[in-house]
């Protein structure tokens, strides 16, 4: 009997604290495809690439190295479901490989808490696990008709383009679209696909983040006729869901002609739906957006 591949799943802050449906869907999808999700004992915030890295690179890098070290000690690839966490862990792993001075600081710091320096940690984004480790063909073969004719606006998010060179920067966004199509939905084209959702700006200036970033993006998506937005990052998810409400309440924006907005889900939730798992089984109704609109369109 073939052994199940195990992953050290890095849930980050947002999923466990705000989006249990994403964790639940991920565990179910892993289970269906014969993978095992192992929790990382004592993992901390990645930490975030916007606030902590800007304040002090040594702390940011040491905490990221600690997380990578936990996964490496589990002898598994670390997988993250968040673009921001991926950005931090990717950048930290590269910095530890190339910057001897910072590597020395981190090594000494980790030693004070009895942690070893990660030597060659494996890091995967959930999109890579779905598209490469499970595989597009396998997802296609195992899908139901649940998502048939569902028009999906894929929002890759900025950090999904993170790569070592320009040539490979489009790989993960392309995988994302392939996964959506393989799950049975129809990825639609829209104008501002590459545009940021505005989440990182939100902590500095909410009005700019919502009116100048999110509203432009949403308008482009609504004009495309999408039934829902699919993201690969919980921070983008929160920005789309709460941002829509705030645009209406605080700034009287009416981008969808008096409608109730557009639902947003994470890519693992979409794959779970494609597998025929019912929305209530993984708690999809806990989303704050108009999720019933999406449920009404499922077959």
């Amino acid at each position, binding site marked *: 009997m073939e052994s199940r591949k195990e992953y050290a799943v890095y*849930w980050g*802050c*947002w999923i*466990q*604290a*705000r989006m*249990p*449906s994403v*964790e*639940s869907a991920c*565990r179910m999808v892993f289970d269906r495809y014969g993978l095992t999700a192992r*929790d*990382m*004992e*004592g*993992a*901390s*915030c990645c*930490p*975030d690439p916007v*606030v*902590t890295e*800007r*304040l*002090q690179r*040594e*702390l940011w890098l*040491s*905490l990221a190295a*600690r997380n990578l070290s936990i996964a490496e000690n589990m002898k598994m690839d670390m997988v993250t479901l968040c673009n921001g966490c991926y950005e931090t862990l990717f950048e930290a792993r590269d910095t530890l490989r190339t910057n001897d001075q910072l590597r020395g*600081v981190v090594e*000494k*710091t*980790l030693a*004070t*808490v009895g*942690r070893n320096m990660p030597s060659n940690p494996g890091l995967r984004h959930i999109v890579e696990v779905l598209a490469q480790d499970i595989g597009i063909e396998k997802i296609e073969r195992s899908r139901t008709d649940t998502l048939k004719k569902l028009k999906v606006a894929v929002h890759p998010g900025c950090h999904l383009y993170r790569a070592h060179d320009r040539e490979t920067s489009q790989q993960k966004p392309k995988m994302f679209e392939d996964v959506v199509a393989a799950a049975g939905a129809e990825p639609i084209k829209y104008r501002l696909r590459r545009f940021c959702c505005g989440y990182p700006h939100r*902590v*500095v200036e909410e009005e700019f983040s919502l009116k100048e970033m999110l509203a432009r993006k949403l308008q482009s998506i609504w004009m495309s006729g999408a039934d829902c937005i699919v993201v690969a990052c919980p921070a983008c998810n929160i920005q789309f869901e709460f941002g829509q409400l705030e645009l209406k309440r605080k700034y009287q924006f009416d981008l969808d002609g008096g409608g109730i907005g557009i639902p947003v889900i994470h890519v693992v939730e979409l794959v779970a739906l494609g597998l025929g798992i019912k929305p209530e089984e*993984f*708690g999809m109704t*806990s989303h704050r957006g108009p999720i019933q609109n999406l449920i009404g369109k499922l077959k």
Partner: protein
Amino acid sequence: MNTLPTALVKETEVAKALREELQADFVDESRMFGDRPIFLVRKDAIIQAVKILVDDFDARLLTVTAVDNGVDFELIYHLAIKSLVVNLKTLVPKEDSQVSSITGVVPGAISAEREIWDLFQIKFEGISDARAYIAPYEWRDAKSPLRKPLAGIVGSYQKPTVEKLMQTGQVLPITSSIIKEREKLKLPSIRSTPTQPDAVKEIRTIAHEVKFDKKTGYDLDKNKLRY
């Protein structure tokens, strides 16, 4: 009393004397450039430190300078021992903005201390004349031109992230409604830092080790930013 001729006084002897007499009040020794040693001492020991240099090494006060580094004030006492110039440095928390005057040891320090009061509003306790000194008359009512706002380097929008990270290891609280939702979905219990006190201690130890607490003004005992 040190019996060596002052011309032969070496930096190591000064450091040794300060370290031995101040004990725990001697915090650190560093170097700004070339032959300029910096001795960091606790604020409450500044009079004693100056007295050691003046009495034992015939030190002469050149000036006192102040810097607002955002979180604390740095007061630097520049003293000459013949050709050797040493800097005694102490940190003054911006919350209380006061330090003992050294005019009891070096009366001539009064002009530098009054100037610092003018420019930074750092109060020198025990000074014989605390009047403003160099600021224009129209600036003398609580307008200290070189004093930055009581804000530190952590912006107001960054504070919740910093405090949550130091308190729980993550940046969002796990609310009771989320715990209920997780139970309903039969999710396993959370194994990351919010439920692991020892792991949070590790985060705080790391923060202290890389001097994040010092840089941002995070009080690890009170577990919050000082301001």
